[in-house]
């Protein structure tokens, strides 16, 4: 290994160091690419500029899933002339058994650098550092082991789910199942992008939104419920006995955003029609309170980050859909198909669906997607008279 004084600074301190990891891997495997990458990174740290450029590499039949990186300084550092990434879709909920994991590592070490990111922000396992010539073989072996490439480009992207029913008492639908079904359904356009721009799903089991779906997915599928919060009175009493009345008032009642909770004869009372399913009281009293029994999902649309229009949080489009049976799943996928058809027509190149909705109008969008207007879609009715109604 060449000296990397800058990077070495990142080996001190208590947090696990990626630099140490890379170095140890390089020492053991002696892969020149790893040395090259460390050298190029050191060079970036010194010059404060990046030196990768894109290109086009893919596997047979696919149009996306490999992020291509060629070095702009390969004359200086030839070992990392190519440093492509393979995006791999993990299981919903990011669950593994060690057999799967070890197999993945073995294939990856065989063909690639051995650097592995768990996980990319969109949810992919990112296998970072492979040369073009090994991509197909590596993919074939991975695919045979049950793995498939993730998304890139103007198509469906890899999705993320929270752990949901896999461990969480708040899960209002089986998000792992829906994730799997939906992504399998759209697998074609994930591999062969052909839309206006990317489209991301995220599946959160409840409005705590542990996948940050609202902010970073075009289609945020968030569990919710319609009926009253379930209250275990004994556990409420136990909670108050343990934490005190002050805590009940200051940390639960007072923090309900719509003041749906009040004290009636010293008992906590929740006015269901005032509750907006924010989750706070359930979070504060997990043993005593649980979501209602009539569970399902809300669909929020248009989440994305800063580019062009500024950050856009997803907007509530479908307040509620049941998500229990296979038919529910099918109805959901059909609805998404209709939405995408509309977007394919109405959208522009490189326009996220939230941008299209904003440009064209929410009313026009719901008409196009066959969704009924609902007051829950807006925080308030319009404050200007600037519309033409068809009367």
């Amino acid at each position: 290994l060449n000296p990397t004084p800058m990077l070495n600074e990142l080996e001190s301190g208590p947090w696990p160091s990626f630099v140490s990891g890379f170095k140890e891997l390089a020492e053991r495997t002696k892969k020149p690419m790893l040395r090259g990458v460390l050298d190029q990174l050191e060079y970036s740290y010194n010059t404060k500029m990046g030196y990768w450029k894109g290109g086009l590499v893919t596997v047979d039949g696919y149009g996306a899933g490999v992020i291509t990186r060629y070095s702009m300084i390969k004359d200086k550092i030839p070992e990392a002339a190519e440093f492509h990434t393979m995006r791999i879709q993990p299981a919903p909920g990011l669950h593994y058994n060690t057999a799967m994991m070890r197999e993945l590592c073995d294939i990856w070490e065989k063909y690639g650098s051995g650097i592995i990111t768990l996980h990319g922000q969109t949810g992919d396992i990112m296998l970072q550092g492979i040369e073009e010539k090994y991509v197909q073989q590596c993919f074939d072996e991975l695919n045979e082991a049950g793995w498939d490439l993730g998304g890139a480009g103007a198509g469906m992207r890899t999705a993320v789910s929270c752990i949901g029913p896999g461990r969480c008492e708040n899960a209002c639908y089986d998000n792992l199942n829906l994730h799997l079904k939906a992504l399998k359904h759209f697998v074609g356009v994930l591999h062969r992008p052909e839309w206006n721009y990317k489209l991301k799903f995220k599946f959160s089991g409840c409005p705590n939104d542990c996948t940050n779906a609202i902010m970073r997915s075009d289609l945020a599928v968030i569990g919710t419920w319609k009926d009253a919060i379930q209250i275990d009175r004994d556990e409420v009493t136990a909670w108050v006995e343990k934490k005190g009345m002050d805590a009940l008032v200051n940390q639960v009642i007072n923090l309900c955003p719509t003041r749906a909770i009040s004290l009636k004869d010293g008992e906590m009372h929740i006015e269901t029609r005032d509750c907006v399913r924010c989750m706070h009281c359930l979070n504060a009293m997990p043993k005593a309170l649980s979501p209602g029994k009539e569970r399902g999902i809300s669909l929020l649309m248009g989440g994305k980050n800063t580019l062009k229009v500024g950050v856009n949080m997803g907007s509530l489009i479908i307040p509620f859909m049941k998500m229990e049976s296979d038919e529910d799943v099918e109805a959901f996928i059909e609805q998404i198909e209709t939405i995408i058809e509309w977007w394919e027509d109405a959208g522009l190149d490189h326009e996220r669906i939230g941008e299209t909705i904003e440009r064209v109008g929410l009313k026009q969008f719901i008409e196009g997607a066959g969704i009924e207007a609902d007051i829950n879609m807006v925080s308030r009715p319009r404050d200007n008279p600037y519309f033409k109604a068809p009367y």
Partner: protein
Amino acid sequence: MSSPERKWKTIESGPHTYEEALHPVVRKNYGKWKYHEIPKPGVLMHVAESGDAIYTVRAGTPRQDTVDMVRLLCDVADKYADGHLRFTVRNNVEFLTPNKENIEPMIQELESLGFPVGGTGMCVSSVSHTQGWLHCDIPATDASGVVKSMMDSLYEEFKDMKMPNKVRLSTSCCSINCGGQADIAIVVKHTRPPRVNHDHLAMVCELPKAVARCPVAAIRPTVVNGKRSLMVDEAKCICCGACFGACPAMEINHPEHSKFAIWVGGKNSNARSKPSTMSIVAHNLPNNPPRWPEVNEVVGKILNAYKEGGRPWERVGEWINRIGWKRFFEETGLTFDDNMIDSYRHARTTFNQSAHVRF
């Protein structure tokens, strides 16, 4: 691209299946959980309706892992978690076990391997991480180095649960912000319009695409040395960097002029207040590898003030909303300036359209 002797026929399977990846106790109680508790930092206990309990031990990772590191984690999983492990959306690793006795030895082993146990409850969890100089084609800084520097400073906060509520951090190596909205975010802020590299442009640019990408129509076609090229109206340009993603000849990155900004108050959960985007509270911080002390210092100031002043359950943005932005700046020692006044599309909706005033 495909080699002729290919034998395997691709199965377009999409996401990996999850059944076999779930711990048996999880499989048994799937969707039937009753409640959880956090017995200590880094440990969760989830109890099912059946009465079964499953314990989770959570640990931090560098995210930019290696096969060796992953194999180590697999060893831990085999030893203490019946051969199962998972990752959180914040790059922490989790080991689930029904055996309470496994918890302490597992913690000790993870810590001794260098993986800090923590990241639960009212802590500072791992940073949302992006690509940076390691891999991206448009970064103005590194991501992993910034994350490592920050988490070194926040190590104790990761391992403890002494914040008013969860603190989510993120970092991004360009202003596109793949890292996302967070309680506190460190994001590159370009401060100069792109310089057009006309020679390069002639070779690589789909001109209309780059023109269309600019949100303020600052890019115009032009001819340079007889070749079609682009020019930037620098007065109009808002340094957003969108054009650079479309065309690498729109060189916006700069070793000195690409700076850092610090943002606060992003929130994605619906708990209590509606989700909210972040606000800028510091900018013009230098891009200073390998340790970025200046950004770390600002993050520290904010976290200290929040830890001191936040009430239970208040996220950073909720704390600020209660005390007001004026006091936020006073208590963190940061300075509000006129660049922080919104000037983009919906700027008017951020004006204080009231006589509500704090002195």
